[in-house]
């Protein structure tokens, strides 16, 4: 009888706390960027019995919306409102400051939950693998973005923008355009954004006047989108240089442009910019120079400042058609240098595996079939039970925020199919501990969890500090400051 009462009490407690049936589907999403939040949203919607816990290694949610989207793109960050509504749902919880791999292992997580979705993105960089890559003054664009966006791991970058007037950016995608824009845009315009204050102070004293954006291929293959290109072409007091001869199209280029609206419009914008003459060349003007058909061969070391970069040695390239109308850059054996004191490599992000996770090191992704993690990529019939991926970890570091919407839809529909087949929750099996188990384990390991309401404290403190400086927020850019705001 007593046992029954306890049972009933527990049932009641469970119900009143979670607001759902006593036997919920326990789901854990690792990573709270767009891929993680869209996955959570779609899981909650598709499965009324689902209880979704989102964990993140940072005390702050929203991933690249917070630390990737440029400070002068506040409209792009509005999606945070939607994600916050998801986090505030009764069946959803956020646990920040929880690192997969150190706070909790993947196998522990899979023990606790019926479904684990990894959406922790790509926190490392592809490397060029060429001589001199470790010289001072060479950074990955990701580090630079983290630095100006106040990521707590980005504060120590301290790029020296005073020793040189020239920066070379390798790559011509949207990240490359973002960092170029931050280097060139008048700081008075950046001052009213949520840019990290340490970055603003450094940029205000910047001596950078010339920025090169260098691509291996031509203007018809540039990886940026029209919005970002239009924006950088329109910055005040910046002269744009593009060699008109680079814009000539080969029949293969025309073929490529025909089938790609984005590239077609990007090419049009570049052509227009190349035709219009520089506004007024003066001493205080800044310059943006697009350079096409160059691939970096090695980095040169400064003679005056040992260990520091002084230039990039480029090999000229031509395009060669490969399959499906794609063209790749081939070196011509002809070389050219660009002198510079700073290099930002914007050649792609790379995901990092954790223990016990199948990983394709060549592609930098987790082998998967529509989001189902595969231990043997050649055999999609045997997926890892209950383990899924979404976002950059699943498909590589490309696309925009909305791409994750479709990516999450695909992963969630795979989960739904597997649930229907009955593989995930065998009826005879014991209930999974889910959230209660996670909290217990983290407590035992002395991990200080940051809840969503803790984040709201950080949020309101950042907004308060921001309002004092006419900024939408002043990001707390160190771990210490973040912890202090919630203690």
């Amino acid at each position, binding site marked *: 009888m007593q046992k029954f009462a306890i049972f009933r009490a527990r049932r009641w407690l469970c119900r009143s706390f979670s*607001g*759902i*049936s006593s036997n919920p589907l326990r789901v854990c999403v690792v990573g709270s960027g767009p891929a993680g939040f869209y996955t959570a949203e779609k899981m909650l919607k598709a499965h*009324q019995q689902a209880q979704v816990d989102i964990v993140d290694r940072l005390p702050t949610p929203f991933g690249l919306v917070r630390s990737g989207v440029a400070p002068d*793109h506040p*409209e*792009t960050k*509005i*999606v945070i*409102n*939607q994600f916050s509504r998801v986090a505030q*749902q*009764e*069946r959803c919880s956020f646990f920040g400051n929880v690192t997969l791999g150190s706070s909790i292992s993947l196998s522990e997580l899979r023990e606790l939950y019926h479904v684990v979705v990894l959406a922790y993105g790509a926190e490392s960089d592809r490397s060029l693998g060429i001589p001199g890559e470790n010289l001072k003054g060479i950074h990955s664009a990701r580090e630079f973005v983290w630095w100006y966006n106040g990521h707590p791991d980005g504060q120590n970058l301290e790029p020296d923008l005073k020793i040189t007037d020239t920066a070379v950016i390798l790559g011509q995608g949207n990240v490359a355009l973002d960092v170029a824009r931050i280097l060139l845009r008048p700081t008075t315009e950046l001052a009213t954004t949520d840019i990290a204050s340490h970055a603003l102070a450094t940029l205000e004293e910047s001596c950078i006047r010339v920025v090169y954006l260098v691509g291996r291929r031509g203007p018809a293959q540039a990886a940026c*989108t*029209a*919005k970002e290109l*239009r924006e950088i072409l329109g910055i005040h007091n910046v002269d744009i240089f593009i060699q008109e001869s680079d814009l000539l199209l080969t029949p293969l280029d025309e073929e490529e442009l*025909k089938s790609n*609206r*984005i590239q077609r*419009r990007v090419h049009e914008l570049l052509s227009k910019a190349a035709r219009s003459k520089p506004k007024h060349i003066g001493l205080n003007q800044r310059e943006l120079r697009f350079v096409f058909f160059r691939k970096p061969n090695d980095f040169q070391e400064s003679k005056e400042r040992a260990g520091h970069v002084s230039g990039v040695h480029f090999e000229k390239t031509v395009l060669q058609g490969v399959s499906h109308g794609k063209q790749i850059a081939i070196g011509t054996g002809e070389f050219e240098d660009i002198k510079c004191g700073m290099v930002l490599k914007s050649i792609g992000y790379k995901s990092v595996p954790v223990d016990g996770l199948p990983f394709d090191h060549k592609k930098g992704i987790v082998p998967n079939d529509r989001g189902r993690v595969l231990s043997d990529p050649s055999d999609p019939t045997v997926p890892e039970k209950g383990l899924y991926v979404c976002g950059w970890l699943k498909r590589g570091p490309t696309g*925009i*925020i*909305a791409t994750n*919407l*479709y990516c999450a839809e695909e992963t969630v529909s795979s989960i739904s199919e597997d649930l229907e087949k009955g593989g995930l929750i065998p009826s005879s099996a014991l209930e999974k501990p889910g959230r209660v188990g996670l909290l217990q384990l983290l407590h035992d390991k002395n991990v200080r969890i940051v809840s969503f309401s803790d984040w709201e404290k950080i949020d309101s403190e950042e907004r308060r500090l921001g309002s004092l400086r006419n900024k939408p927020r002043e990001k707390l850019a160190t771990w210490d400051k973040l912890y202090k705001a919630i203690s």
Partner: protein
Amino acid sequence: MLNSKLARVGASVAKHLCTRNCTSLCGVGYVRTGRYRYLQSPFQQHSFTKLHKGAMMERHNFLSTMTTNNTTEEGSEEKETISVTFIDKDGEETHIKVPVGMSMLEAAHENDIELEGACEGSLACSTCHVIVMDVEHYNKLEDPTDEENDMLDLAFGLTETSRLGCQVIAKPELDGIRLAVPAATRNFAVDGFVPKPH
């Protein structure tokens, strides 16, 4: 001029009455599902109330449209509405009334129609992408701006009659417009659309 306008309003009232019947039937359906779900969980209770409210609002709108149409005859065009049909991913149609001046994104959200709007209408994403289902209506829209085209570049399942829902603003000429959420169009052809030769 006035006569033709009155005729158009009259036609829209007739059309309206017709679609209204259909919508209210759907409305009943919604409420029923809602009630059933309400028994399942408190979370659902919320959506039940919302849906129920939605149904009530539709009814209210209907009445106000009637009065509006009367006042139109007296010369005032305030609160004029147009009929809009949304076709969701599964091909299900929802008929709504949208006040002139309101964007299709807002209208969808007010009527609980599933249409993403990540940037809340600030022209910084492509998630409210809709496909205008007939070329005639599409041609009555202002041409998209460069900024809208920049976002359409990134839209999933782009077609020749794609627009962003936040940029399509209700105006009398658009009465009867049909808008599909992208996945729905996989099995549809856009009425009267002839693919342009490349």
